[in-house]
């Protein structure tokens, strides 16, 4: 009996052991990615500087810089199930010997499956360490006199494991689902995370809905949306009166709509009984994001 039991454990161990590295999150390098869907124009630039147009089912090697043109989008799939979608005028690359990607410009969306060792996302302004989640990274360029100022939106759409830090390794901050950070390149401190409306960001976004393959994290995104809706419904969360569209450079405001009754006992924001929606919410948001450095709200 004991012998049978011992053999059983031995066979079980032999079967499961090869799977453990992945299940334990041991990194498997991102050696290559396959172009699984393409809209309009995409190219990749090899390490030797040569640039070629890409087509579906092309295999992109690490260190190749993947670029999309205007009005273009692309989807790339890594062997471990990691999925990347690029928006128009976007570029990214990845390191074959590690699980690291670099977003250089434009819009990149990542789905990182659980148990595959996570992903390190190096953007211009922050570095993110993520696993089992959907992440949106947008690189924004703002002309600032003769120079160009870079900002990065790093948004955790769903998932529970994400942290961001400055490129110099300082000032780590954790994100929960529905939280993001809007960081200026070169800032000495990390902006505090803020909550954002996941439904607003994703519902009609072609980067999520404009491909044949449904986004793998869709169910989890819907769960976050439902959770946020409940918090909005009972007044624990409220929308700011402003929002950003485009590449974060266009700022819109909610119109002076009919009011919402105060939630019993909830904090009355300073804008509540006055109707000054925009400015004070920006003021609030400045406080949230830290007023000691230029904040996203100062982008106009």
């Amino acid at each position, binding site marked *: 009996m004991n012998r049978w039991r011992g053999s059983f454990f031995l066979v079980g161990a032999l079967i499961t052991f090869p799977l453990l590295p992945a299940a334990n999150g041991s990194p498997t390098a991102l050696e290559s990615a396959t172009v699984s869907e393409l809209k309009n124009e995409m190219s990749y630039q090899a390490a030797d500087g040569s640039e070629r147009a890409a087509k579906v089912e092309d295999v992109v090697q690490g260190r190749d810089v993947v670029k999309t043109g205007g*009005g273009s989008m692309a989807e790339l799939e890594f062997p471990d199930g990691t999925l990347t979608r690029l*928006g*128009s005028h976007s570029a990214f690359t990845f390191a074959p010997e590690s699980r690291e990607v670099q977003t250089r410009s434009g*819009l990149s969306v990542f789905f990182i499956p659980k148990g595959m060792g996570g992903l390190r996302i190096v953007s211009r302004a922050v570095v993110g360490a993520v696993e089992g989640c959907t992440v949106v990274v947008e690189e924004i360029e703002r002309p600032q006199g003769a120079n160009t100022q870079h900002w990065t939106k790093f*948004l955790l759409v769903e998932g529970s494991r994400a942290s961001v830090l400055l490129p110099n390794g300082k000032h780590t901050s954790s994100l929960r689902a*529905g939280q993001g950070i809007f960081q200026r390149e070169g800032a000495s401190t990390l902006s505090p995370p*803020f*909550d954002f*409306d996941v439904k*607003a*960001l*994703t*519902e*009609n*976004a*072609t*980067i999520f809905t404009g491909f044949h393959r449904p986004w793998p994290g869709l169910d989890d995104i819907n769960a976050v949306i439902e959770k946020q*809706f409940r918090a*909005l*419904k009972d007044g*624990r969360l*409220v*929308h*700011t009166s402003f*929002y*950003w*569209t*485009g*590449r*974060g*450079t*266009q700022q*819109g405001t*909610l*119109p*002076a*709509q*009919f*009011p*919402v*009754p*105060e*939630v*019993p*006992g*909830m904090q*009355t*924001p*300073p804008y*509540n*009984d006055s109707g*000054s*929606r*925009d*400015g*004070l*919410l*920006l*003021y609030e948001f400045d406080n949230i994001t830290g007023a000691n450095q230029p904040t996203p709200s100062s982008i*106009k």
Partner: protein
Amino acid sequence: MVSRTSGSVKLFWCSLFVAASMARAQEPQLFLIDQRGFGQLGPAPSTQSQPDEADYREELGPLHPLIALRYTPFQAYSDTSYLYDSNILLTDHKPVSDMVLDQVFGASYSPRLFNDLKTTLYYQHYIDRYDSNSAFDFDGDQAGVDLAYTLVKPPIPYHEEQTSSAWTLYGDGSYERLTLTTGDALIYGMADVRIGLRCDYNALLPRWTGILKPIAPFYGYQFDWRVSYPSVLTRADNTGFLGASMDVVRNVYLQVLAQAQWQDYLDVNRSDITETVSASLIWHINKYASLNASALFANNNSSLNAFSYKVLSAGPNVTLQIQF
């Protein structure tokens, strides 16, 4: 004899002033509701466009920050006004103008009892002092409970279908007393029971630049039953109101209000109709302080000619508040 005459004038004036101050005091009630902007995403973004802006907009939705609210049921506040009053005696016969300092100290508690029902218990003490007519100075105390229930809720942006309006049913029960500054003698007392219905909706106001400016109009009806001391001032008020608020520049907004009120005095044969228009320009300095410049004009037509009057009141106001 002089003092008796003076006392009569005081009572006469105070009763009338109270009538006017009641009308003024209705404004906070009318504005009790949160004016926070919600609803459809209307206006075009205000910054420069980019060559393929449309691509960017479609590929990812708006990034709309959310703010978590803390549970802070207690509020303490101070409200200081220094107003020009064109007719402090509220009579068209030889109107007297003066400057009045109106100081209010108050505290409120808003327990979370039921969803969608806003409940606020409050107490406030006020001090009114005249520059040139100090004989009319008085102090006051008021305590009461405010209730507001949302019948039709405004939609949550992105998550709910748009509705064209929001409706709120509100009520208030309060007791107020005014006393002389010397001797604490009661000159006026009133128990007020109020119920009202208010509708808020959306509108866009064309501007000379061609851009539509969003505004938040509202209108409603309010009934007050005011049992007073002296009893000749007991009355029932029916008020219709119409107003709007809009942002002017960052942190500054404008509110305008017009109302018509029919006052039916229950113990005497008298009824008044008061039309009031007011405008306030409010600058929110921060969450603790705001500065306000306001003007109010009221025209009262009474069935007893002696009580008909016109009055203009205008001046600055500073509000300080803390919530915890």
